[in-house]
């Protein structure tokens, strides 16, 4: 019991650091780019608008990482989801709702196959999802090598449905009233995040995931159904990847083979910055959210600065990853010491 308490302390400490880092970075941004409008409400909301898909995908990634696994197929799944949405609506003439339900089901099936291979055949998650990554990207190209633009009116209405907030309006220099807004995708992403947070923290399934990631052997001896729990985790993650892909598509409104390349790495980086351990057993979707927001803030820095190469985003994220990995290992070492 005491050990459990300490572990949680360590976790929440990492979370606090992530959140604090985000706040500090954002305040630095406001201080530096005050004249350029960094402090605007909309600038903050844009972090959510542009990253709604990634927030959901990172939440899914966090779940499989807590089980001690990984999923590198998510970027390709996003591309496939966008392509299937575009193709079914534009070429096959499906309705928007029908297409959306179909891609979500596709994600569940994809997650089920990957999860089954990982849990029941005990194949390395990296290898399984590597195959999944090639498969999904390949299928995307098979469906169409050309870009497909989504012109379905219902879908575009979802994508362009601005929800104005009742505060933070201002008049811009052209004399137009600008009110801050979000898109439905932001609400979906945040609701999903809260639901996943509750599932992980307060349900048997959620706790089993932590137990398996912490120590698979003892989880087994405690009588947990390790295989089924893992399978469920991958199915949930597959669903979240396709939902993330759907939100991503609401932002880009097109299907294209090259889409979302490397998105899996952004999701993994966000999870790690958010305090998730690659070894499993530790992690929190709220942390992953802030991981995504930190990445978005770095990108905002680069564009507001205006002359730096955008590759600095990657370099800064690399530095942060190093920082967090070292921090985590320091914690792990401290914990070991405490045990003795």
């Amino acid at each position: 019991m005491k050990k459990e308490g300490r572990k949680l302390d360590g976790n929440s400490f990492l979370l606090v650091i992530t959140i604090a880092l985000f706040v500090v970075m954002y305040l630095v941004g406001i201080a530096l780019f005050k004249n350029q409008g960094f402090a605007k409400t909309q600038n903050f909301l844009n972090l959510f608008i542009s990253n709604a898909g990634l927030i959901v995908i990172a939440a899914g990634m966090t779940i499989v990482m807590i089980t001690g696994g990984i999923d590198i197929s998510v970027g390709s799944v996003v591309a496939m989801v966008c392509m299937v949405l575009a193709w079914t609506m534009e070429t096959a003439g499906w309705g928007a709702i029908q297409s959306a339900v179909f891609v979500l089901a596709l994600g569940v099936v994809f997650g089920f196959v990957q999860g089954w291979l990982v849990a029941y055949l005990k194949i390395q998650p990296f290898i399984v999802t590597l195959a999944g990554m090639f498969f999904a990207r390949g299928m995307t190209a098979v469906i169409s090598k050309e870009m497909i633009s989504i012109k379905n009116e219902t879908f575009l209405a979802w994508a362009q449905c601005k929800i104005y907030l009742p505060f933070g309006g201002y008049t811009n220099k052209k004399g137009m009233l600008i009110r801050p807004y979000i898109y439905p995708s932001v609400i979906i992403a945040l609701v999903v995040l809260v639901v996943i947070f509750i599932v992980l923290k307060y349900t048997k399934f959620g706790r089993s995931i932590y137990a398996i990631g912490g120590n698979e052997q003892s989880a087994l001896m405690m009588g947990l159904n390790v295989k089924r729990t893992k399978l469920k985790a991958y199915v949930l993650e597959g669903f979240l990847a396709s939902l993330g892909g759907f939100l991503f598509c609401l932002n880009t409104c097109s299907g294209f083979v090259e889409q979302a390349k490397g998105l899996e790495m952004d999701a993994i980086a966000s999870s790690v910055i958010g305090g998730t351990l690659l070894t499993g057993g530790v992690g929190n979707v709220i942390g992953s959210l802030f991981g995504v927001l930190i990445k978005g803030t770095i990108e905002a820095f680069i564009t507001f600065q205006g002359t730096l190469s955008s590759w600095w985003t990657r370099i800064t994220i690399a530095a942060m990853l190093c920082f967090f990995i070292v921090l985590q290992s320091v914690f792990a070492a401290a914990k070991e010491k405490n045990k003795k």
Partner: protein
Amino acid sequence: MNKKLVSVLAVSAMAVSMMPLSAFAEEDLITVGYAQVGAESDWRTANTESFKSTFTEENGYKLIFDDAQQKQENQIKAIRSFIQQEVDYIVVAPVVETGWETVLQEAADAGIPVILSDRMMDLADDSLYTCWVGGNFIKEGETCGNWIADYLEAQGRGEEEINLVTIQGTIGASAQIGRTEGVGNIVAEHENWTMLDMQSGEFTQAKGQEVMESFLKSYDDIDVVICENDNEAFGAIDAIKAAGKTCGPDGDIIVVSFDSVKAAFDAMIAGDLNATFECNPLHGPRVAEIIQKLEAGEEVEKIQYVDEAYFDTSMDLETILAERAY
């Protein structure tokens, strides 16, 4: 615990402040946000340089440049950031043609004009952008066809039966479609010209060589090879030489290509390539011209072509090469 937290924050604040930043904006400058595709080719780099050297503070501009690393989602983010920064104009060289409605609507709602550079967007509502600036691929193709006609005339072969082949670009690319059409228009004007075959070399040297090898096997009397970019021409030249034939101004086969990259000048100086037709990347000055017109409240044309030249072996290529930006 608190001490640790403070030190961690200090370290992170340091890490952030280490990034080289400059944050001053001058009121009277015209702010232009440019969302560039990336830096994938010499052409692209020259295009970027053209903007950076045109939109300087001395010329009365502040340029906010963003490299999207070939990703549409990065470009969408960049445009959103430009809107927040209340730039006066947004210039976009779109990575892909599709999926711009939402973010361009956001720009329109904020009253910021959007100018497209190089590539077109596939939009349901064309009023979402002010104008487009880029190369005229059809005209490039026609210039090429006319140059071939003049060249043959000068050689006294104006009335001869002429056999042509085309190594096309990647099928469906706007450069391929336009150049094929432009050349085709001129071929149709000459009854003594026959287009023997057209195949895609996918804009690469290796594929260009492969296609040329198969052409040489199938047809023994090829007079002119039209390559839809320079790289394909380099491959074609290798194939011609390997087949024991000669090309260039002193050879059996006339080889022409598009784009005019530096290596094409080297090939012309070496006497392998006859001519190359430019795809001008220097869009900066034309965009600046448009912005000045818009500032003065004038109307601008929706489609604006940049001036494009061609180069052949009769010119002083070494001097031109030394002065070229790309």
